[in-house]
């Protein structure tokens, strides 16, 4: 339980009037308000402290108690002892709730989950004050977090579980097959903790997909290039082509032209969130003109030439 000098926090001296406190709070709240400092945990923590300081100093009764005990913090041991004795006989009167002997704090607010107020505040003013504070101050939705997840194209051909770490918390999530590069998904309630009873923020994950394959992807369709020999292009034949999930045999029609394209239906990429539905694979043929012909091959080409080819 660290002593928090609320006056120092609000940059005030002890003689500050109610109006000074209000002005100081406003000034600092504008600087550290969580909405003005997205994804800044430090600012959020500072804002909570400022809120807490304002909560105490703007209430004459609480301020009086704070001035009495907070000032002489070096006598904390005596204070602790007195608190324990009082707790055993039913707790302090007034605003002091204290802790039960089991070590659990009293709670007056069922949905007040986050640790908005410091231990110092809780010790000084007890669970009741904490709950009152929660109700009096504004309820904030927690910060929305933004994260980027880099995946390889080969990793998103099938739905897979991934564990990501956001602000020190491990989150296990299933990335559906076929997510798009640049696509953002929202995971509700996995952002920053809500302030003063507000709901948790959301986590937004943007996917950065790196292509580690020889395929070009456009949404659910894939594109690739296959070389075929001049004779296969002219006479037709059967070749082996690569698809995302292995090789398949493909018949090449006689008279296939360079740069012509064939479509392999359903051999493309999985459609996002549509189970067992796939795009198509488009294959571009590149007819390879032979180099370094043997004498025999040259002879045969000469023969062909004579036929008008």
């Amino acid at each position: 339980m660290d002593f928090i000098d609320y006056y120092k926090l609000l940059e005030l001296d002890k003689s500050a009037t109610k109006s000074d406190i209000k002005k100081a709070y406003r000034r600092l709240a504008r600087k550290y308000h969580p909405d003005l400092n997205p994804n800044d945990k430090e600012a959020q923590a500072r804002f909570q402290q400022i809120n807490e300081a304002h909560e105490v100093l703007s209430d004459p009764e609480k301020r009086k108690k704070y001035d009495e005990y907070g000032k002489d913090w070096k006598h904390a041991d005596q204070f602790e002892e007195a608190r324990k004795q009082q707790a055993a006989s039913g707790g302090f009167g007034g605003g002091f709730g204290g802790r039960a002997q089991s070590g659990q704090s009293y709670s007056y607010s069922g949905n007040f989950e986050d640790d908005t107020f410091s231990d110092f505040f809780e010790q000084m003013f007890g669970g009741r004050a904490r709950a009152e504070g929660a109700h009096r101050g504004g309820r904030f939705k927690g910060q929305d977090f933004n994260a980027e997840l880099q995946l390889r194209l080969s990793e998103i051909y099938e739905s897979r579980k991934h564990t990501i770490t956001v602000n020190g918390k491990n989150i296990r999530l299933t990335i559906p097959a076929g997510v798009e590069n640049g696509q953002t998904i929202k995971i509700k309630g996995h952002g920053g903790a809500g302030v003063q009873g507000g709901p948790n923020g959301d986590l937004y994950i943007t996917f950065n997909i790196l292509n580690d394959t020889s395929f070009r992807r456009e949404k659910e369709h894939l594109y690739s290039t296959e070389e075929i020999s001049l004779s296969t292009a002219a006479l037709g034949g059967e070749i082996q082509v690569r698809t995302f999930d292995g090789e398949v045999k493909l018949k090449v029609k006689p008279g296939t032209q360079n740069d012509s394209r064939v479509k392999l239906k359903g051999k493309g990429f999985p459609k996002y969130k549509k189970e067992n539905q796939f795009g198509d694979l488009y294959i571009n043929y590149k007819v390879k003109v032979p180099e370094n012909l043997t004498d025999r091959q040259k002879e045969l080409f000469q023969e062909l030439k004579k036929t008008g080819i």
Partner: protein
Amino acid sequence: MKNEDLIPAEEICMHYEVERQFVSSLYESGIIEIITIQETEYIHCDHLANLERMMRLHQDLDISLEGLEAINHLLEKIGELQKENMGLKNRLNLYE
């Protein structure tokens, strides 16, 4: 756009206890979008978080509409820069 994603502006004003004029002003400033269907004005649920943020800033910090416009613009810029920064850090990780 699905209709269930649209929340009547009137309902939002009642729920958050804000004046209808405030929501209209945010719309006129381009901070939020309002969709009108058969003379009823709706706000898409995706824009709700921004509306809530603007309401908090207005109520907690007494920020005027002009101030909210400036803040909204700067927050958008911060968001873009944070995203870009994160992307660059991730790329850098590949070489470390």
